[in-house]
């Protein structure tokens, strides 16, 4: 990657909330300050924890801005408070027990300055497993690159694949996303990255530029403790998935689900509940019902829009009434009682999003004549209803020339995830040659190259295909050596009785593991 014009170095604000972890804070802070990129502002927020003034004073760096709050208000509040002081063009994050490598900020700034279409960039991190010794120090056991996933906007709506400590984004994007959600007790980082994908692309740098720590046994992480409460976890996930930042959304197409029901009865409530639980693409549900029912419905369900219709309104009229109210780009028609499960809608939606077919709509897999359900591009549906509204709904679709079809195998989205799941299953079942083949196929066809190659090398080793594993390991270690891949290549060298080469690789792995690359330790 080329360096940008260094005469106009943009300022980076590093946000560091901390709560009762003074033991590790000084090291984390040192890692933020000892960067190859120096135009930094590091904002440390004590979230009502024990006094850390000595640590801040000992760092003795004018680039630190210290907010010493006595009251514990949580991480989201702390980040929002830090943001009020952030003057940087870019925002970066560091937890009080994690570490940046010295090139972390420089790499991310370079990526953002060289790729202006990306408002956010992220790198890879080692997940560092450690054992806490009686004196509180951390004994390092392993450093694993657990996730090294290239940016996938739609997957991000489903699950967070960007570690917050590895993230840097333009500060001005927060004017669109809004601040951190202080009503969430966990997953506040995903809530923010999810909101960011509505407005910008992310740039993935598959270099390892830091570490986050997890202790074996009982984790001391607050988020870990709170995730154990399944009900609370589910509540937070649902809140995040139903969050809709203010429009316009340049990167996400909106979806309206028009829910068709004779009356708002128990079955309708149950179906809507399942839509709420399983849908991760941003949506609003439009519910055409008689005014009498609207008065009876008591719900705090988000994104539910009541559309009053006359008691005599038929199926097509209800759809027309809802269509009048929505500005969404995609429209799903779903009847009460329709089976809703994981990925029930997104498979069809993303297939349609990727389709270049001009007059084309997709019928849901479980749909039939009694329970008709399909997804349309808004303009197609408008055309059909505006021009053929004298016809029953399905006939108007045909009359408009909209080709309604079920999802074809080649249209199924998330192919990476489907293949990855399959390879992982084969690996776990001991079918290593097949697992290796699938991982290599993914690496060649579905991005995420280094990550998949590493998994393939490991599977080849397990399969006893040492020569192929050695070739692959050598390739990986030439571009991005990790502790895991160095260890694997060393084992292969040992099998070939090349002991001195193995020692060299192992010493390299050992020095990463022992943090000898961290200059301030």
């Amino acid at each position, binding site marked *: 990657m080329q360096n940008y014009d260094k005469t106009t170095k943009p300022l980076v604000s590093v946000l560091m909330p901390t709560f009762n972890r003074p033991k590790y804070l000084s090291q984390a802070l040192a890692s933020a300050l000892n960067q190859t990129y120096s135009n930094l502002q590091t904002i440390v927020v004590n979230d009502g924890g024990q006094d850390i003034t000595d640590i801040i004073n000992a760092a003795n760096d004018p680039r630190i801005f210290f907010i010493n709050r006595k009251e514990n208000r949580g991480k989201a509040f702390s980040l929002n408070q830090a943001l009020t002081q952030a003057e940087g063009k870019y925002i970066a994050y560091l937890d009080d027990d994690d570490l940046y490598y010295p090139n972390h900020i420089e790499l991310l700034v370079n990526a953002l300055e060289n790729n202006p279409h990306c408002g956010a960039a992220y790198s890879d991190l080692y*997940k560092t*497993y450690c054992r806490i010794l009686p004196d509180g120090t951390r*004994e*390092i*056991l*392993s*450093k*694993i690159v*657990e*996730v090294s996933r290239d940016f996938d906007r739609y997957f991000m709506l489903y*699950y967070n694949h960007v570690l917050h400590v590895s993230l840097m984004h333009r500060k001005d994007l927060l004017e669109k996303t809004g601040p951190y959600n202080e009503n969430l007790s966990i997953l506040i980082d995903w809530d923010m990255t999810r909101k960011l994908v509505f407005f910008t692309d992310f740039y993935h740098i598959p270099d390892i530029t830091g570490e986050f720590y997890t202790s*074996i046994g009982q984790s001391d992480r607050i988020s870990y403790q709170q995730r154990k409460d399944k009900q609370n976890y589910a509540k937070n996930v649902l809140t995040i998935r139903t969050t809709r930042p203010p429009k316009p959304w340049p990167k996400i197409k909106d979806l309206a689900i028009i829910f068709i029901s004779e009356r708002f009865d128990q079955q309708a409530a149950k179906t809507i509940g399942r839509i709420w639980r399983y849908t991760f693409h941003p949506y609003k549900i439009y519910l055409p019902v008689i005014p009498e029912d609207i008065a009876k419905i008591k719900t705090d369900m988000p994104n539910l829009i009541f559309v009053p219709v006359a008691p005599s309104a038929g199926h097509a009229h209800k759809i027309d009434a809802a269509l009048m109210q929505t500005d969404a780009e995609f429209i799903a028609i779903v009847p009460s009682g329709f089976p809703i499960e*994981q*990925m029930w809608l997104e498979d069809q939606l993303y297939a349609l999003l990727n389709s270049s077919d001009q007059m084309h709509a997709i019928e849901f897999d479980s749909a039939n004549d009694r329970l008709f359900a399909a997804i349309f591009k808004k303009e197609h549906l408008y055309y059909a209803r505006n021009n053929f509204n004298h016809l029953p709904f399905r006939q108007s679709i045909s009359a408009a020339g909209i080709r309604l079809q079920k999802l074809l195998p080649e249209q199924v989205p*998330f192919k990476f*995830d*489907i293949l*990855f*799941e399959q390879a*992982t*299953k084969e*690996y*776990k079942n001991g079918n290593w040659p097949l697992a290796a083949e699938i991982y290599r196929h993914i690496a060649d066809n579905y991005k995420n190259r280094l990550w998949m190659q590493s998994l393939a090398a490991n599977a080849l080793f397990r399969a006893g295909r040492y020569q192929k594993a050695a070739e692959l390991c050598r390739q990986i270690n030439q571009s991005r050596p990790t*502790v*895991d891949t160095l*260890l694997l290549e*060393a*084992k292969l060298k*040992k099998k070939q*009785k090349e*002991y*001195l080469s*193995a*020692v060299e690789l*192992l*010493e390299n*792995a*050992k020095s990463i*593991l022992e943090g000898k690359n961290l200059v301030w330790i």
Partner: protein
Amino acid sequence: MDITKSKKEQAEENNTTQHYEILKELGDCFTAVGNYDSAQSCYEKAAPLAPDEAAPYIGLGVIATQKAQLEDAEIAFKVAVRLDNKSSKAYAGLAMVAQQKGDYKRAFDMYLKSLEFDPDSLTALLGLFQTSCQMGSFEKVIHYLEVYLDMHPADTYVMFTLAALYMKDNRPEKSKELLANILSLDPEHKDAANLLEEVERSIVQKSQKQ
């Protein structure tokens, strides 16, 4: 699609053993090139990182054996057996120590134990052969060599050893058959050709006596 679960499970499979593995592998490599001091240091650091693993103690035992520190070696192998009472290598280590101390009976028993847990162990097999020679008893070792050859039918090294044992046990026909097999696999095997000549002479002499 539940990719989150599979990812987590995969991570858990190998998430805490790297430091231990690196030190253990380093120990093995240093041992292989004769750098025993470095190897020892690695095994000593590896042991507390994985307190339930026998491998570092086996490594320490091997080094002590190489340095002729037989008492230390025995202690290390005993610790290894305590941590893993099915460790073929630990029993082979105890056998080697006993053999070097001249306790052939114990060495023989420990090699047998080692083979019980790893019938593939060439170290144990050849150790058994050596102690058999030292004790002058071949019956059991012949059985184990036969079992080994059932699994590794093309191992000419063990085939030759067994052929020699058959000769010593006064079974020249079995020896001849095995030597012919070796030569069909490796026509250049001079030792096999020489022994075959001797065996054939012995068969002729035997038939003349009868």
